[in-house]
């Protein structure tokens, strides 16, 4: 997804302006004019300058015929779009239900779903998903002692 630089510039300007506005609530220190708000303000101003230059450039490109947003070729093939969002959705799923359901079941579901969608044969998909999940779990939870969420395993074991 390639947006015209005018759009990119506008987003950056809005972001920088919001950040600068937020710095007004930061405390100042008596007798010392350089508080926690100075650095973000300097950066925010720089980002606004960059944004303006980008908008300038984007509008020039727009006048010479560039579109506002250009989608890459793969976005016209629905299954590729699904692949893209499957990756993001998997992470979101883990963030949302990982704590209650636990790492092992969620990881198996994520891997299995992606393997099957990407066209791995069902039997090897199941085997690889289970083996990979347990190897990674063993490595991080047992070897490195990362407290991966246990979730429903707590109820079973």
């Amino acid at each position, binding site marked *: *997804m390639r947006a015209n630089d005018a759009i990119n510039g506008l987003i950056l300007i809005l972001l920088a302006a919001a950040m600068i506005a937020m710095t007004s609530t930061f405390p100042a220190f008596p007798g010392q004019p350089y508080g926690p708000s100075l650095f*973000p303000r300097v950066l925010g101003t720089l980002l606004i300058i*960059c944004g303006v230059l980008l908008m300038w450039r984007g509008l020039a490109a727009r006048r010479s015929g560039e579109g506002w947003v250009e989608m890459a070729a793969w976005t016209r093939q629905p299954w590729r779009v699904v692949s893209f969002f499957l990756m993001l959705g998997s992470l979101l799923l883990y963030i949302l239900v990982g704590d209650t359901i636990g790492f092992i079941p969620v990881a198996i579901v994520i891997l299995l779903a992606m393997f099957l969608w990407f066209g791995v044969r069902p039997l090897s998909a199941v085997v690889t998903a289970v083996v990979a999940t347990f190897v990674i779990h063993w490595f991080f939870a047992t070897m490195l002692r990362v407290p991966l969420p246990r979730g429903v395993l707590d109820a079973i074991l």
Partner: protein
Amino acid sequence: MDAFITAAGLVLDLNVLWVIVAAAAFGMFVGAMPGLTATMATALLVPVTFFMDPVPALGAIVTATAMAIFAGDIPAALLRIPGTPASAAYADESYAMAKKGEIDLNLGVNLVFSVLGGMVGVALLILCAPVLAEAAINFSSFEYFWLALLGLTCAIFMTTGDPLKGVTSLVFGLLINCVGIDPTAGHPRFTFGSVELLQGISFIPAMIGMFALSELLRGAVSVDERNVVLAQKIGNIFHGVWSVFKKYWFNFLRGSALGVFIGALPGAGADIAAWISFAISKRFSKTPEKFGTGHIEGIVDATSANNSALAAAWIPALVFGIPGDSITAIVIGVLYMKGMNPGPTVFLQNPQFIYAVFIIFVLANLLMFPLGWAAIKSAKQILRVPRNVLLPIILLFCLVGSYAMTNSFYGVLIMLVLGIIGWLMEENGFPIAPAILGLVLGEMLEQNFMTSMIKADGNALVFFERPIAGVLGAVTVLVWGLMLWRGFMGRKATLAPT
């Protein structure tokens, strides 16, 4: 000398050696797989090294990256796809050689000159770092402020064809770094009342997102692409390498020297070194017309340069805490996590760690010979690993890795958000490396800026009063001026026809 013996003792431990060998194999694999880069290898390694002692942790990163930079040459020859961006400069040349039937010679030269170039880089790292550290011991906040700013400036000046987008990316990275408790007054900024945001945007999950997740997203939409490996048998790769060395020893020296120089510059790393040395090789070649037809000369330059740059990038990282490239940016993050704040004081307080890094670099380059040979011999099997199995597993690895860095879902969330931002940035032509450097150097820059401002009582001229600070400041201002001028002239040139 005592420190050296301690260091040798630290490295030559069975556990450490085991970690080094495992990391080497991992680096070879990641480097040889197209789409998986050396930076990504480092980002994926960090969550693992987080739980190790400093020496094995650094050993794993040094070894894995050295291997990955070499291994990137293998698919360049076999597939015409560079395994890492550092091999992109001569992928076409390598492939042309392979098609001419000179694949053995190509891979042999790549391996041997990668090892030799790496050794040159290490030698200069060993020679220069302690000397520079001695000079750096007298630096105050002014010098560090200018150094950090100069480093960030170089990152833009060297790496991007589009300085405006480079600057934007850098400022964006610095602004993200402002989230959390501010370094001078301890006031929480942009945290929206969230306890987790108080610690700031955790650097490692951000890295994993920007370098690994964004790469996976690109991979996911082209997962069905099949790689067509050249159907050639790989024979004795060392045959004829000696005569190449005798003929092109000067290219090797020039490439390595250039690699060291570019690597040591903050912000530019192995890939830039390879591009520039390849271009210089062509420019000064007696037979420039042979370039592009499968000619070994430029490959000698570039393959030496990218490996020597890798080691040289550690010079500014260890001495000043300013990363030489995106890999050492991660390393600096790791050093901070290990409580070894990079800078000249490490050379005084913990010299054994510095020596350990040196020893590991030498070991890694020696290890490259047998492992590189094995990787070349098994290249066809490695390249046959199906991407549709690999990508989901790497995704799971990213997920667990970023979770492990914060022990909470906060890490995964950062990874997800910055992964999407990183992907959007790449799609729109904003380079990622400056943003990451901004994220790493932001705190150092702000701290030294604020300290200097308070010391100078707001008088900008004081920033130039100390001699070294003055020179560094002048150079920084000069580079900015040059960049603005170039941007201005460039604009004039582009506006003129319309």
